[in-house]
C-alpha cells in the first residue's frame, strides 16, 4: 500500500505542481510587482519570463507526458521503421574530475530506422531491447566510476516475458545470430536473470572495431544526422570522433503493446580540459565545447539543455539567465531552446563563471512554514483559523518571502460561492418536534348535508428558544367560520393560517346563502370546489408567511484574511502572502480564516409542506417541522454533490488516496540567491470527524558534509477528533527541478506507528547520514495514514426530502500528507588530501584485470584485483556468468579477501541458470583499501577465447546525478539472489532497515578479454614447431645470392663448372 503511495507521489506532485508553481515564476519575474498586478498587467506581455512560463504551462496541459517520466506513444510501425513524435531533445552537461566534462544528448521518441526485425516472431516476445556501444576504459580521468553501467564493447540487453528455458535459449541464439549476420559482431552472454514475474533479462556483449562506430552511430540516430535537423547531434558526433576520452551511445526500445513502442536514444561523451581556469575563477563556455552555437532539432517538441556542477560553488556569472528556480543555489542551470513551435533560443550558447566554495561558515536564511489551526475554535465557534508560522532558523535575513497556497477547486468553490441556499432559523427560534395537531373542517347544511374533512396536519412546531412558547400559534381548538362551517384542531393551529383563512375563505363564505346551498345541488358543488381552492391558497400563503418569518438565508464559509490575497487566475487559484523581510531566529505568523463554518452546535430546522392522504384516501396538507444541525446538513450537501469536504487535499484516482502537500514558498538572501520550501500538508475535512495530522520535520544541522550524521526531529500532532491509524512515515531526500517538481527522491528511512490518538503529539528523533544532492539538500517526511478507521460511509438524510444518501468520503479514507520541508547545505566530502572532491558515488572500486598464458599446457590464468579506493565501506557482490563451453575450460578458481595485511580465503559458490553457470565469488563488505583477488585458471583453451567480465555489484553510498542509460524497471530475482545491474533508482520496500538505507546498487565490470592464441593441435596430428616467414625468406635469399655468385664467377672465368 505504502509503496503504491510513494510510487504515485512524484506523479501526483507533478500534476499539481506544473500549473501551480508557475505562478511563483511569474512573481519572481518582477519582484517589485505583485503577482496579481503582474498577471493583470501583462499575462502574455512584456515580461518574457512570465510569458515563457505561461506558455510552458499551456503546452504542458496539451502534452503532459512531455514533462513526465512515462511516455506512452502509439507509433506507426512499418517493417523496421518506427515513426514516433520526437518529444524531447535534451542535452546534459556535468562537470567532472579535473575540469573534465561529461555531456550527453537524449532523444525521446522520433523516427527510427535501426535494422531490427521488430515484426518477426522472435522479436515479438522481446519486451525491451537496449543496444549500447561503450568505451569507458579511461573513465577515471573524467568520473569516479563508469557513467554507464555497461562493459566496454557492443552491449545488447533484452527483456522478455518468456520463462521457458528452451524458448529463451532460442531467443538468445537468434539475437546472437542476428547481430553476427547483420553486423559481424560476435556476442557472448554476459549475464542472465530469471523471474517468473518479470520475465528474463539477458545481457550480451561483443567486441567491436573502432571503424564500425560510425556505422552504428549514424544508423541509431538516423534521420537526425543531417544539418537540417539542427546541429546538436552533429556536434556530438564530431566530438565523439575528435576529442572524447570515453563515450557511449545507443538506444532503448520498449514495447508497450504489440505495435506500440517507446524509444530513447542517447549518446554521452567524456572530454578532458573543458573548463578554463583563470586565477580562482573557472569558466565554462558551451561554444568552446561544441565549437558552434547550438541549434535545436526542428522536429523536437521540446529542446532543453542543462548544466550541472556536482559540487558547491559560488557562481559569479551566468549568461543567459537560466530559466529554472534557484539555479545558483543548486548548481543546476537549465535552458529551453525550443518548445513546440516557439524558439526560445534558436542559436544557443551559454557561459558560466564560478569559484569553488569551501567555506563551511555559510550564511543563509532557512525558513520553515508550519500550517495548523485551532480545532476547538472550529468546533465551538465555526471559525477555521488557519495559521502559518514562518520561522527563520538560518543565520541570515530572508528577503521577499512569498508563500503560495495553490487551492483546490473545492476550496475555490467554498471561497467563491459558499454552500448555496441554506436556510437558517432566525435568532431565538427553536423547534418542538413533539407538537402535533390536526385541523379539520366541519360543514353542516341544516342537518341534511354534513361534511367533515381534514384540512391540515402539523408535526412539530417552532418555539421561542428562550421562553419555550410556541411561535405564531393559536391554541384555539374550535373556530366558527360562519353559521354552518367550523374548524377544529387537536392542539391549536398556526395563527398565520387562521389569518389567511379569514382573508381568503370568510369573504367567500359570506357570498352564499345556506338555504340555496341546501336546495341547489349544482350550486353546492361549485361552492365546495371553490372552498377547497380558497383553503389551499390560505395554507400556501400561511406556509410562505411562516417561512419568511422564521427563516433567513445564511452565508457560510466566509473567507477573510489580512495576510493572504485570493488570486484567481486562468491557470489556477492561489492564496498568496508576502513577507518583505524576516530576520534570523524570528517567527512571523500569518493566517487566513473561514468564518461561519457550520458546527454541530448550530441548530437547523426543516419546515416542509407536503400533501398526504388519510385512510379514506382523502388528500390533505401536512406541515412537518424537523430539527437537525448544520453539520449534518453540510454532509448532506457534500454527499448530494459528490464532494469530499477535504478542501486542502487532492484525490488521486489511481491510488485512492487524498494527498496534501501544503504551501510552497520562495525567498531570497541578501545576495539575491533563491531558496524554496514547502509547508506541511493538512488533510482537513469538513462535516466529518477526522484524524488530522500536522507534521513538522526539522534538522539541527545547517551546513554539513557528505557522511555527516544529521539529527532530525519529526513532530506529528493529531489535531482531529479521532485516532489516525496505520501511520507509515517515509523520510525522503528529494531533488527538485526548476519547476519545483521532484525529479529524484530517495527513501532514507521509514517508521510505522499503529495509532496516533486524537490530540496526541508524537516526536520522532532520528539520525541520518548526509549523502545526496549537494548544495540545497532537502528532506521531507511523507506520512500516509487511515482516517476514520473502520468507519463506513456516512448515511446522510435530507431533512427536506428525507432522502438518504451515502457520503462515501465520510467513511474510512487513506491520506498522504507531507511534513514541512527542511534543508541544509551539503558540502562535498574531502579526499584523502583534505581537499573537496566532487560528489560522486562512493565507494569507488577499481578492477584490474591481468592474465598469464602458458603455451605448453595452453593454460590461462586470469587475475582480477578489485580494490575499494573510495572513502567508505561497501557490500560487494562479485560474480560471473559462464557458458557451457567456457565452464568446460575452467579448471579452478580461487578468491582471496585482503585487508590490512591479512588474507582470507573465500570459497566461491556455483549455481546453474539456463545451462549457464554463475560463480558467486564473494559477497562481502569491503572497507576502503580492502581488495578482492580472484583467480581463474582455464586449461586447454582454444585458440580464440573470450573471458567474460566479472560483474561487481556494490552499494554506493550516494549518487548525485543520474548519468546512466535509460532504466529497466526489473525487480525479479527469484532464480537468483544476485543483485542485477539496476540502472535506475528504485524505491525499496517499506521494510527498509537502518543498515540498508542510503545505498544504491551500482554495477561495475572487469575488462572482457578477447584472446587469440596459436591454434591447438588436433589430437591425431603431430605437433611441430611453427616457422616464421623470415626463415624461408632467408634461406631462399642466401641460396639465390650464392647461386648468382657462382654463375657470375664461372662466366667471368669462362670456365665451365
Amino acid at each position: 500500500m505504502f509503496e503504491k503511495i510513494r510510487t504515485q507521489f512524484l506523479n501526483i506532485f507533478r500534476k499539481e505542481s506544473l500549473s501551480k508553481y508557475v505562478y511563483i515564476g511569474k512573481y519572481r519575474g518582477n519582484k517589485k510587482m505583485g503577482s496579481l498586478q503582474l498577471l493583470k498587467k501583462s499575462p502574455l506581455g512584456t515580461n518574457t519570463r512570465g510569458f515563457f512560463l505561461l506558455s510552458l504551462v499551456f503546452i504542458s496541459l496539451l502534452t503532459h507526458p512531455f514533462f513526465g517520466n512515462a511516455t506512452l506513444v502509439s507509433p506507426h510501425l512499418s517493417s523496421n521503421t518506427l515513426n514516433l513524435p520526437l518529444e524531447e531533445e535534451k542535452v546534459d552537461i556535468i562537470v567532472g574530475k579535473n575540469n573534465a566534462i561529461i555531456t550527453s544528448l537524449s532523444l525521446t521518441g522520433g523516427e527510427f530506422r535501426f535494422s531490427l526485425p521488430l515484426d518477426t516472431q522472435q522479436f515479438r516476445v522481446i519486451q525491451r531491447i537496449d543496444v549500447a556501444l561503450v568505451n569507458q576504459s579511461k573513465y577515471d580521468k573524467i568520473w569516479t566510476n563508469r557513467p554507464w553501467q555497461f562493459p566496454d564493447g557492443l552491449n545488447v540487453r533484452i527483456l522478455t516475458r518468456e520463462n521457458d528455458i528452451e524458448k529463451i535459449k532460442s531467443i538468445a541464439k537468434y539475437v546472437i545470430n542476428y547481430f553476427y549476420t547483420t553486423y559481424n559482431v560476435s556476442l557472448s552472454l554476459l549475464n542472465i536473470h530469471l523471474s517468473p514475474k518479470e520475465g528474463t533479462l539477458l545481457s550480451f556483449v561483443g567486441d567491436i572495431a573502432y571503424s564500425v562506430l560510425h556505422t552504428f552511430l549514424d544508423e541509431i540516430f538516423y534521420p537526425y544526422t543531417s544539418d537540417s535537423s539542427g546541429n546538436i547531434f552533429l556536434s556530438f558526433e564530431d566530438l565523439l570522433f575528435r576529442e572524447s576520452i570515453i563515450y557511449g551511445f545507443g538506444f532503448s526500445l520498449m514495447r508497450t503493446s504489440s505495435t506500440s513502442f517507446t524509444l530513447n536514444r542517447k549518446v554521452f561523451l567524456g572530454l578532458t580540459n573543458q573548463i578554463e581556469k583563470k586565477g580562482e575563477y573557472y569558466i565554462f563556455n558551451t561554444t568552446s565545447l561544441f565549437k558552434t552555437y547550438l541549434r535545436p532539432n526542428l522536429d523536437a517538441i521540446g529542446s532543453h539543455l542543462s548544466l550541472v556542477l556536482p559540487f558547491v560553488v559560488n557562481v559569479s556569472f551566468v549568461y543567459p539567465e537560466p530559466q529554472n528556480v534557484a539555479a545558483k543555489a543548486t548548481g543546476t542551470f537549465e535552458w529551453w531552446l525550443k518548445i513546440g513551435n516557439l524558439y526560445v533560443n534558436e542559436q544557443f550558447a551559454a557561459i558560466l563563471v564560478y569559484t569553488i566554495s569551501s567555506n563551511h561558515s555559510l550564511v543563509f536564511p532557512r525558513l520553515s512554514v508550519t500550517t495548523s489551526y485551532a480545532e476547538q475554535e472550529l468546533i465551538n465557534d465555526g471559525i477555521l483559523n488557519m495559521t502559518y508560522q514562518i520561522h527563520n532558523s538560518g543565520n541570515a535575513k530572508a528577503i521577499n518571502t512569498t508563500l503560495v497556497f495553490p487551492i483546490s477547486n473545492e476550496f475555490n468553490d467554498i471561497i467563491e460561492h459558499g454552500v448555496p441556499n441554506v436556510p437558517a432559523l432566525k435568532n431565538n427560534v427553536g423547534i418542538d418536534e413533539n407538537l402535533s395537531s390536526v385541523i379539520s373542517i366541519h360543514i353542516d347544511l341544516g342537518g341534511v348535508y354534513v361534511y367533515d374533512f381534514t384540512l391540515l396536519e402539523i408535526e412539530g412546531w417552532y418555539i421561542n428558544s428562550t421562553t419555550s412558547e410556541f411561535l405564531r400559534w393559536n391554541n384555539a381548538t374550535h373556530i366558527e367560520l360562519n353559521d354552518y362551517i367550523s374548524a377544529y384542531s387537536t392542539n391549536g393551529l398556526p395563527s398565520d393560517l387562521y389569518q389567511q383563512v379569514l382573508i381568503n375563505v370568510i369573504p367567500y363564505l359570506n357570498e352564499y346563502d345556506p338555504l340555496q346551498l341546501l336546495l341547489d345541488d349544482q350550486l353546492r358543488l361549485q361552492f365546495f370546489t371553490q372552498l377547497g381552492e380558497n383553503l389551499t391558497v390560505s395554507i400556501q400563503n400561511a406556509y410562505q408567511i411562516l417561512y419568511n418569518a422564521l427563516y433567513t438565508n445564511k452565508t457560510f464559509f466566509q473567507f477573510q484574511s489580512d495576510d493572504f490575497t485570493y488570486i484567481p487566475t486562468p491557470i489556477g487559484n492561489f492564496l498568496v502572502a508576502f513577507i518583505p523581510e524576516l530576520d534570523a531566529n524570528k517567527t512571523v505568523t500569518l493566517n487566513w480564516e473561514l468564518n461561519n463554518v457550520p458546527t454541530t452546535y448550530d441548530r437547523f430546522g426543516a419546515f416542509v409542506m407536503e400533501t398526504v392522504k388519510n385512510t379514506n384516501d382523502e388528500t390533505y396538507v401536512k406541515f412537518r417541522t424537523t430539527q437537525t444541525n448544520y453539520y449534518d446538513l453540510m454532509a448532506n450537501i457534500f454527499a448530494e454533490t459528490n464532494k469530499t469536504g477535504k478542501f486542502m487535499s487532492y484525490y488521486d484516482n489511481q491510488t485512492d488516496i487524498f494527498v496534501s502537500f501544503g504551501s510552497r514558498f520562495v525567498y531570497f538572501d541578501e545576495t539575491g540567491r533563491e531558496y524554496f520550501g514547502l509547508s506541511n500538508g493538512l488533510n482537513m475535512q469538513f462535516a466529518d470527524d477526522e484524524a488530522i495530522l500536522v507534521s513538522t520535520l526539522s534538522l539541527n544541522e545547517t551546513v554539513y558534509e557528505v557522511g555527516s550524521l544529521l539529527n532530525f526531529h519529526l513532530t506529528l500532532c493529531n489535531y482531529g477528533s479521532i485516532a489516525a491509524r496505520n501511520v507509515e512515515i517515509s523520510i525522503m531526500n528529494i531533488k527538485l527541478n526548476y519547476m519545483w517538481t521532484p525529479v529524484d527522491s530517495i527513501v532514507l528511512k521509514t517508521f510505522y506507528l499503529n495509532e496516533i490518538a486524537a490530540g496526541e503529539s508524537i516526536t520522532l528523533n532520528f539520525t541520518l547520514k548526509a549523502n545526496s544532492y549537494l548544495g540545497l539538500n532537502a528532506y521531507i517526511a511523507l506520512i500516509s495514514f487511515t482516517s476514520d478507521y473502520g468507519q463506513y460511509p456516512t448515511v446522510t438524510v435530507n431533512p427536506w426530502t428525507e432522502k438518504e444518501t451515502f457520503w462515501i468520503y465520510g467513511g474510512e479514507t487513506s491520506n498522504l500528507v507531507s511534513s514541512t520541508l527542511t534543508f541544509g547545505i551539503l558540502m562535498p566530502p574531502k579526499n584523502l588530501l583534505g581537499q573537496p572532491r566532487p560528489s560522486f558515488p562512493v565507494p569507488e572500486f577499481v578492477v584490474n584485470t591481468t592474465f598469464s598464458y602458458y603455451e605448453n599446457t595452453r593454460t590461462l590464468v586470469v587475475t582480477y584485483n578489485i580494490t575499494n579506493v573510495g572513502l567508505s565501506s561497501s557490500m560487494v557482490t562479485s560474480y560471473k556468468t559462464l557458458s557451457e563451453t567456457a565452464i568446460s575450460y575452467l579448471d579452478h578458481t580461487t578468491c582471496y579477501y585482503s585487508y590490512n595485511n591479512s588474507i582470507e580465503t573465500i570459497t566461491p559458490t556455483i549455481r546453474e541458470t539456463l545451462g549457464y553457470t554463475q560463480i558467486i565469488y564473494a559477497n562481502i563488505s569491503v572497507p576502503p583499501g580492502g581488495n578482492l583477488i580472484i583467480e581463474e585458471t582455464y586449461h586447454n583453451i582454444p585458440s580464440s577465447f573470450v573471458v567474460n567480465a566479472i560483474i561487481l555489484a556494490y552499494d554506493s553510498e550516494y549518487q548525485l546525478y543520474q548519468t546512466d542509460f535509460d532504466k529497466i524497471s526489473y525487480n525479479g530475482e527469484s532464480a537468483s539472489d544476485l543483485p542485477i545491474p539496476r540502472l535506475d533508482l528504485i524505491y525499496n520496500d517499506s521494510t527498509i532497515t537502518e543498515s540498508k538505507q542510503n545505498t544504491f546498487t551500482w554495477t561495475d565490470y572487469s575488462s572482457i578479454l578477447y584472446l587469440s592464441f596459436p591454434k591447438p593441435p588436433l589430437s591425431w596430428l603431430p605437433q611441430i614447431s611453427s616457422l616464421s616467414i623470415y626463415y624461408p625468406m632467408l634461406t631462399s635469399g642466401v641460396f639465390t645470392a650464392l647461386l648468382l655468385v657462382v654463375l657470375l664467377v664461372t662466366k667471368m672465368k669462362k670456365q665451365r663448372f
Partner: protein
Amino acid sequence: MPRRSDDTNIWKALANQVRRDLIVFIGEKGIVSFTEIRDRFNMKVGTLYHHLDTLGELISQDQNKYYYLTERGKRAYALIEDEIDVSAHVSRTGVPAFFHNLLLRPLFEFFSMDAIRPLGFSLLIFVGLCIASYYLTIGPVFLFPTFIDPSYFAPLFLIASTLILYILSDLTLRFIFGRKQGKLALLQGIMLIQVPLTLFSLAFYYGSSSSYPVYPWEMEVWLFVLFIFVQIYCLGLLVESYMVIKELRVEKAGFAALLITYLLNFLAFVIMNYFGGT
C-alpha cells in the same frame, strides 16, 4: 691434343644442316635403319652415304647395320639441342674440382653410372636416418628440421619430405628440361641429401629450444651459422645431383634447384604454421 682433334671433327661433322638433322633424327629414334633414314631425308643414296660417312665417329652401326649414336654422337646431339652435357668437361683439378668433390660428385656419378648397385647401401643409410630422427624426435620439413611430437611422426616426415623433394625434382626436370633418365639415381641422391639435415638435427637437438625463434638472429650464433651452412650445402648437393644425374649445366641445375627451393620453402612455411604451435 688428340681430344682437341676429336673436337674439330665433331664441329666439322655438325657444320652442315643435313648432318645435324641426321644426328637429331638418330638421337630421337635411338636406333634406325638406312631405309628409314632415306625415307626421312628423301635424297640420293650417294649423298646420304656421304653425310653419314662425314659424321664418322659420331655414329656407328650394329650387327644389323642399324645406325645409332655413339657417346660422342650423343654429345653432338645434346650440342645440337643446345643442351650440352658439360659434365664430361668438368675439370678434374683445381678449385672447381674441390667444390665438386665437396658436393659429392663422385658419389652422384657412381649413382648415375649404376643406380642398382648402391641402392641397398642408400636404403640402409636412409633407414639409419629414419631411426635417428625417431630418437631425436626431429624430422625435416624439407629444409627445416623440427621437433616432432609424437616421435614416430619424425621418420614419417623424413620419408615424406624425401619423396616430395624427389617427385618435385623429377617432374621439374622432366617437364622443363626433358630429362627422363636417372630416376633411381636421383632418388638415391636426394636420400643422400637428408644426411646433412639429419646431422644438423643433432645439433638442433642439443643446441636449440623446442622451437624456432620468431627471428632467425635470435638463435645462437653457431647454430644460426650451422643452420645456414647446412641448408646451402643441401641445396648444393641438390644442384650437383641434377648436374651429374640429369646431365645439366650448372645454370639450369641451379635454376631448377632454386625453383624447387622456393616451392619447398613455401610449403614448409604453410605446413609448419598450420600444424605448428607448440
